[in-house]
């Protein structure tokens, strides 16, 4: 861990302004950042503690949706009665992630910003374009079982590890921010996480210093909500594949995948195939997938997992 300075921000715009300085990072729950600092994968010189900013409420919006403060802890969000009733896919996704202790600390904004769990990202002896842009990707050709099957690039085949974000992608959530100059903006979740391209170190649409104040969920969709996370052990593991789905009585619905790409993976156009079943739907969702020999199973797994979800939806 490198030495760093530390301040407590008093309001969001002050936080955003403070974050202008090079090497500054926000810290909330710290469940990912501190681990990465210990390994010197993250080396901030200045930490801006945003835990005192409030932003910890879940409130109805005039449009009939919910506004979730950036600092709402994963545990609270999962347990909120409105979330459980109207956005069960989100509650289930949250509870499928991490452990109880981590969910108590982890925040809504922090969860969106957590970094990949690619093992080569974690080993500082190995080249990694996320850690050191231009150094190369040591995962390609290496151990790739956990890594991306679609949307990857020659520079990076990492996946985004969040469960929460996958559910939010299915729900068309909107990320709300304030920039260093005080301007606010609303970023649809579809545009929030980026594909790696040739700049895999740039993971989100956020600008330098831009601060997430909250996430808005549109009005409830109805339908049946599923979050099925597939993993090697029963708890406390990242998804091999996860399926977030909201399925309507007529068989239409929405599907987003976790564990397959650099961002939560959703192809809206493919969803019209849903009433025809998992096979055509997943063929469309994962059209263009380029898995490795080690992770080719994820394509089959995604289809079978969706089939299981659709069977439950009918049942």
């Amino acid at each position, binding site marked *: 861990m490198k030495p760093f300075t530390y301040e407590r921000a008093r309001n969001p715009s002050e936080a955003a302004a403070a974050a202008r300085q090079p090497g500054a990072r926000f810290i909330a729950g710290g469940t990912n950042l501190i681990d990465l600092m210990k390994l*010197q994968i993250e080396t901030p010189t200045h930490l801006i503690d945003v835990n005192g900013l409030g932003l910890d409420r879940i409130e109805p919006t005039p449009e009939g949706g919910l506004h979730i403060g950036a600092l709402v802890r994963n545990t609270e969000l999962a347990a909120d009665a409105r979330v459980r009733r109207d956005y069960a896919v989100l509650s289930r996704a949250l509870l499928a992630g991490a452990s109880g202790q981590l969910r108590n600390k982890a925040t809504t904004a922090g969860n969106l910003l957590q970094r990949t769990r690619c093992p080569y990202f974690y080993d500082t002896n190995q080249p990694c374009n996320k850690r050191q842009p231009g150094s190369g990707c040591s995962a390609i050709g290496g151990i790739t079982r956990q890594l991306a099957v679609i949307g990857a690039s020659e520079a990076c085949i990492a996946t985004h590890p969040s469960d929460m974000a996958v559910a939010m992608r299915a729900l068309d959530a909107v990320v709300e921010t304030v920039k260093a100059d005080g301007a606010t903006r609303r970023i649809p979740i579809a545009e929030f996480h980026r594909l790696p391209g040739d700049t895999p170190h740039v993971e989100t649409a956020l600008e330098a210093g831009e601060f997430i104040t909250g996430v808005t969920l549109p009005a409830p969709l109805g339908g049946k909500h599923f979050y099925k996370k597939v993993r090697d052990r029963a708890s406390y593991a990242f998804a091999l594949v996860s399926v977030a789905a909201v399925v309507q009585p007529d068989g239409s619905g929405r599907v987003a995948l976790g564990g397959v790409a650099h961002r939560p993976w959703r192809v809206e156009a493919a969803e019209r195939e849903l009433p025809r079943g998992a096979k055509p739907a997943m063929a469309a969702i994962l059209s263009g997938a380029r898995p490795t020999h080690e992770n080719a199973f994820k394509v089959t797994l995604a289809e079978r997992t969706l089939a*299981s979800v659709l069977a439950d939806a009918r049942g």
Partner: protein
Amino acid sequence: MKFETPATTNPIDQLKIVGKPVDRIDGPRKTTGTAPYAYERHDVAPNQAYGQVLGAGIAKGRVTAMDTSAARAAPGVVAIVTTLDMPRLEKGKTNTASLFGGPEIQHYHQAIAVVVAETFEQARDASAMIRVEYARTPGRYDLEAEMPHAELTAPESDDDSPPPPPEDRVGDFEGAFAAAPVTLDATYTTPDESHAMMEPHASIAQWEGDKLTVWTSNQMIAWGKRDLAKTLGLEPGNVRIESPFIGGGFGGKLFLRADAVLAALGSRAARRPVKVALTRPMIANNTTHRPATIQRIRIGAGSDGRITAIAHESVSGDLEGGKAETAVMQTKLLYAGANRLTAMRLAVMDLPEGNAMRAPGEAPGLMALEIAMDEMAEKLGMDPVEFRIVNDTQVDPEDPARRFSQRQLNECLRLGAERFGWARRNATPGARREGRWLIGMGMAAGFRNNLVMKSGARVLLDASGGVTVETDMTDIGTGSYTVIAQTAAEMMGVGLDKVTVRLGDSSFPVSAGSGGQWGGNSATAGVYAACVKLREAVAQRLGFNSAEAEFADGVVRGGNRSAPLGEAAGADGLVGEDTIEYGDLAKRFQQSTFAGHFVEVAVDVATGETRVRRMLAVCAAGRILNPKSARSQVIGAMTMGVGAALMEELAVDKRHGFFVNHDLAGYEVPVHADIPHQEVIFLDEVDPISSPMKAKGVGELGICGVGAAVANGIYNATGVRLRDYPMTLDKMLDRLPELA
């Protein structure tokens, strides 16, 4: 005391305290956080500095240059020792790779520097500032690719007797196999595994002149002392080791490792005490691991189900000078059959050092053999339990004059089948379904030899009638403190509250240490021997005939008089010290422990996720000294067996030669949600051949066979036969039923 003839009746047989499920006596200290582990020994030496070990960033080659200038200038840095500062250190007897010194890199994360600083954070930060240049050389990292170069190798013998031949043959295997009406020829693989113990390797070192004291976490105090002295070129008498509490070892702490060596070197350079803990990634690549195996098993049987031919051959890899994973050894003994072949081949490779992990040999060997037995049973149309029972042997199949001292495998299997409800298993695979789950039952035999080790202890009696046991025995979470206290209490006729146990100090008599499931029986036998000495001294001092004196309730009785036990101690106390040593009973009899493992699994028909639903182990392992701590040992081992079956694998980067998933996020072990109902039954058994305690080990028996029982359960659930561990869903997905 030399144990040369089978035990007769002795005070342990009273079973007033031994054999009772008493709580562990160190429990309150552990649950209140007051049991001091190595890294927490802040009190033992003032002015401790922190050492951070830097591991090599390549798997094979040389360090050509190290620039430490930035690190030396970093805040708080007290000293830096690099591998270029000294020639390669001597190796301890139990080390394959060098632990430090010289430019050559033999494996990834081999230690190349220790940075000592005022704080842990400063040491860690500065260690990352060292610039290292390497000259890489190509290495051998792919076991399958190295198989053609693997050479026959003999297992190490446990004692001074000559090793068995590398290719061990009885009868005419090939002829009998060719003639057998029912045969199996299959290959199984097990991956490299990490001990993944909770407490990392950690040491604090302090020098006083030439004398070195190390507070560490080590299962084998005497080995550690010997190897540390050799590595650093010290007189063994100048080395002291203390390791009273150990947060798990599983074999990973049997040996001297880099934490102790670099704490000592760092301390010498810093001229003050230095503490070092290996980081989690270093556990996988700097320390030892269980090596991967490729095992071919051939079994031939008559249509009556009797095995006529059995062959088990295993290939594993290790560094130059290393040794094979002894995966075929149990096959020499477990089942009958006139024609036999076992062989091991060793490939020289450049991955980190392979070595013992809980039930070395037996665990991966049975993971293969006990699937093969399941496959054979199916070919024969026999129930897998019955197939094993038919092929039981009460003698060493290679040397029929040698009987097992006790062998209740069939009893374990029969009782297990009954208690588990094995009769409800549908023999047709894939036939039982509950909702989205395919349900299956699997079983396997468990087998682990019982090893006896020389073990010493000193027992002190004080005037209040208190008894203190001192031995360098360790407690790695197994319950050594407690069974030793029970032994001393039983022998001296006092309550457990009168017994103090002090362990893990090299100034105490040398014990068996903790390994190979020999610790519980051997160490308590050593305490027994010391107590016999003390009883004699007490009787003599109090004027009793020692053969007739009875020790009970803190009082010694003989003839028509009695005296308080403490009276014998006098003001200076009274000491009994002895070492248990063994004659040739272990040669004349085969001593082993047995289990029947039964598992019910559920496999998600869509995703192939396997979840264990319930488990049962029925164990026959001699006298159970403490059913509570023994049960804990077995359920812990069963849990580890589930890990080996379903998830544990050090993933090898075959290009760069290292274990990639070197943390506990990437190297998955079972969590609570993976472990459902577990039950353990111990058969009522005493084994007077093993020791005066009539006990045997259980800590490794519990893992032996579990992996195969899970695998056989998966087959019963799905009809998909997997032969490559771990049995993750990707290996069966394309063979699961089509979904609607």
